[in-house]
């Protein structure tokens, strides 16, 4: 498992864990970050905020927030 913020652009991860306060977890879960949901990294420059695609929606996340989402990297098939 790696933090979502470690995925490079184009890489896909499956959500495996949400850390952080209850309110943030609840917000993230409502937006579609639930266990096994597919998250595609759209933009990640290694610093600053990043953009992911989850359940057909582009979501901008702060680096800190992305670091609290644990994902399992999905190998390209």
């Amino acid at each position, binding site marked *: 498992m790696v933090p979502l913020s470690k995925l490079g652009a184009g890489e896909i991860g499956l959500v495996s864990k*949400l850390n952080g306060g*209850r*309110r*943030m*977890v*609840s*917000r*993230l*879960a*409502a*937006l*579609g970050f*639930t*266990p*096994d*949901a597919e998250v595609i990294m*759209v*933009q990640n*420059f290694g*610093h*600053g*905020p990043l*953009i992911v695609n*989850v*359940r*057909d*929606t*582009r*979501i*901008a*996340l*702060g680096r*800190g*927030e992305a670091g609290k989402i644990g994902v399992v990297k999905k190998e390209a098939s």
Partner: protein
Amino acid sequence: MSIDSSSDKTITVALTGQPNVGKSTVFNVLTGLNQHVGNWPGKTIAQKVGTYSHNGVTVSIVDLPGTYSLSANSPEELIAREYIIREKPDVVAVILNAAALERNLYLLAELLALPSPVVVGLNMVDVADHEGIKVEPKVLAAALGVPVVPMVASKNQGLDDLVAAIAGLSSGELPYTPKVPRIRPEHREVLAELCALCEEHVPQPYPAEWVAIKLLEGDSEITKMMEAHLPDKVWQKVHDILLAHEDAVIDVAGGRYEWVGRMTRAALVRPGVGQVTFTDRLDRAATHPWWGMLLLAGVLGLIFGLTYTIGAPLQELLDTYVIGGLSDLAGVLLSSAPEWLLGLVVDGILGGAGMVITFLPILVIFFAAMGLLEDMGYMARAAYVMDRFMHLMGLHGKSFMPLFLGFGCNVPAVVGARIIESRRARLLTILLAPLVPCTARMVVVAFLTPIFFGAAAPLVSWGLILMSLLVLAVSGVILNKVLFKGERAAFIMELPLYHLPNGHTIGLLVWQRTLEFLKKAGTIILIISVMVWALSVLPYGDVESSLLAGLGRLLAPVGGLMGLDWRMMVALLTSFVAKENTIASLGILFGGQGAQLADSLSGVLTPAAGLAFLVVQMLFIPCVGTVAAIKQETEGWKWTWFSLIFLLLLSFAAGIGVYQLARLAGL
């Protein structure tokens, strides 16, 4: 039809949906101008209510705030669910974005757990089509067991069908057999246990099972409510169960998404992987750290350009013809009236009203530009690009939008801070908003800089703007450290798909925001304007011996440190009503206007003192309209006073510092 067209039957519809689904377009098309904008009781969140009639039935439609879910994560979500539970609308119409169906259906999963029947408006079918996403409304309706109406609200397609479905659902003519999502099997037992414990004690009108689910989700409001209603012994049991299932919130949400997956399995066809959409292509530039900044700078430059090429001349025309004309008219009509009455009307009332009216063109341009960018989906990108910078102040990208509005006028900047979820970040944005140089301040700068600096005036003006923004940034860093201990708000924001803007939606938005500004700022500005006028003539009828001058003389020692005499301090004080009042006051105090005033000013003030005055003017306490907005948005006087004192100290300190430094430099 069973409906008697002569009866005046009324039904109530609650309109819900996630953000960025075109909900306000639906509301606007349905109600036209038959709508009323107010605030939810005790909240600073806009409440829109409207009516339309259909087959002799009057339909009262309440536009609930856009929310992703019905948890207690934000005041908006609380308002939406409390309204549906307490007011029991006859029908809940949920607008879904067909291009992000899964996530949108999450809200439906929550709505179906509440008692009111739900009709689905499947909106933005055209946008979904464009992205290669196909949704079968009939298949979806069959799976959900609720009516589904495909629509393109921005092109007025499908709204008649939505209206018909609402009527059919409220009269019971349409079948309604919703497949309510159930909690995951591993949590069914504990849910039943919670239900049994709470059932007798759940206050009306909350559904017991819904309360139990919210408890399991760790919902703060419902937990508080049940702690108050349950006998201590029972609460202890409930509390123990909840502690043992602390992670249930993710499972409950996961369960809802599994239900969504089942509902869409047959109805949704997605594009193949790797298809590059229109939004993807645009975003490559718009969200790029460098290209994005460049694009944003261009967009902002364009808005400023528009403001100054169209707004400023219009402002002058209004000032000359409308306010000037009214003043002349008052002069003629009141020629035989006592002098104080003329003063009250011309300087007090027309002075205040003049500010409000002459600022309308600039505000309208700003509101329209913002509305356009918001409606197209660009605003979220601007926030994303700016997030890096806002971060330094403990804010995030979303604060950029209201702060930018501040360049037009600080009032909408303060009000606009509502879009920020976290109270802490909202408060900080409100405290910083008055440091954005508004157009009124720039009017003063534009008048005074040539007097003191001649050809270097444009350079000095830009320097003053940069100084303001620098002070804003530094204040942000410091206030965040001191007041909020460097805490940082979470940045989680949807980037909606780009789409063509809808003129109707933007027009209504501009109209409503302008009206709101007129109502709120207008009345207060008028009252304070009259009060300041009274202070400037009482007790003997002239400014030099007035109460205001007394106040100015009281401040003279502070002014001395900046090279400013009491008249400059009075001019500063009158800028409290409206920033450009500074020029009018200087005119009265030094006698003369325009070139004449410029001559006497350059004779009295050294460039160093002039610069100090401009610096103070830029950072001084905001105008009364902004103060009123701060009080309203921070819900009290505490932060209003904090803001006033903070800015007063800040501006004087900066003024003194600049004057002393400039003198050392030989200015």
